[in-house]
């Protein structure tokens, strides 16, 4: 079975500072990796995805993530955050089953402080 670990449940950061949200996964097979964002009282929205190819993936709102197969990590980064980035962020891995199920991490609450 696959699993996803998000190492930080809460990350406070000041506006315009850089941020990294960490994600590690366990899998014995090739994986597809995703980062979703959830703004307060809303559903989940896809930030970016890694399917194959370049290990540096760029997403929406200036976020990027790097796939590291040897460390089984897929950390999310942004060089300069804004107040509007305050949200919960979920890392997910696509399961090996045929129904394209996602296994989610427990989430990281990013709070951007003025």
């Amino acid at each position, binding site marked *: 079975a696959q699993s996803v670990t998000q190492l930080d449940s809460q990350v406070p950061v000041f506006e315009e500072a850089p941020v990294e949200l960490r994600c590690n996964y366990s899998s014995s097979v090739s994986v*597809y990796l995703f980062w979703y964002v959830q703004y307060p009282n809303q*559903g989940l929205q896809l930030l970016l995805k890694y399917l194959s190819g370049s290990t540096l993936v760029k997403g929406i709102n200036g976020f990027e993530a790097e796939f590291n197969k040897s460390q089984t990590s897929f950390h999310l980064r942004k060089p300069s955050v804004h107040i509007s980035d305050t949200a919960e962020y979920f890392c997910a891995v*696509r399961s090996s089953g045929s*129904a*394209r199920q*996602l296994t*989610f991490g427990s*989430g990281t609450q990013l709070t951007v402080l003025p």
Partner: protein
Amino acid sequence: NAGVTQTPKFRVLKTGQSMTLLCAQDMNHEYMYWYRQDPGMGLRLIHYSVGEGTTAKGEVPDGYNVSRLKKQNFLLGLESAAPSQTSVYFCASTTATANSYNEQFFGPGTRLTVL
């Protein structure tokens, strides 16, 4: 396109009551999913469906039933609600197209409280 919609948005139940949550998608997606979201636990898969008339259990199926009578709708039922089912429920859908990147599209959620 409305995408994925969920009805109702909020509901309060008493222990033992039953209810049905409705998910509808207008993207002609084959796959649909029901998740529950609890603090510190991320999203956990309850049930899913790979097509009309087919359903399967996910990670936490106990206490829930589902039906997919039409391709665009996926219903989640609670026959006898328990306080442990207090949660936010999300529906999602995705395409079965072989060369797609399989993004799951999520609904806005249903906040359920069981007293």
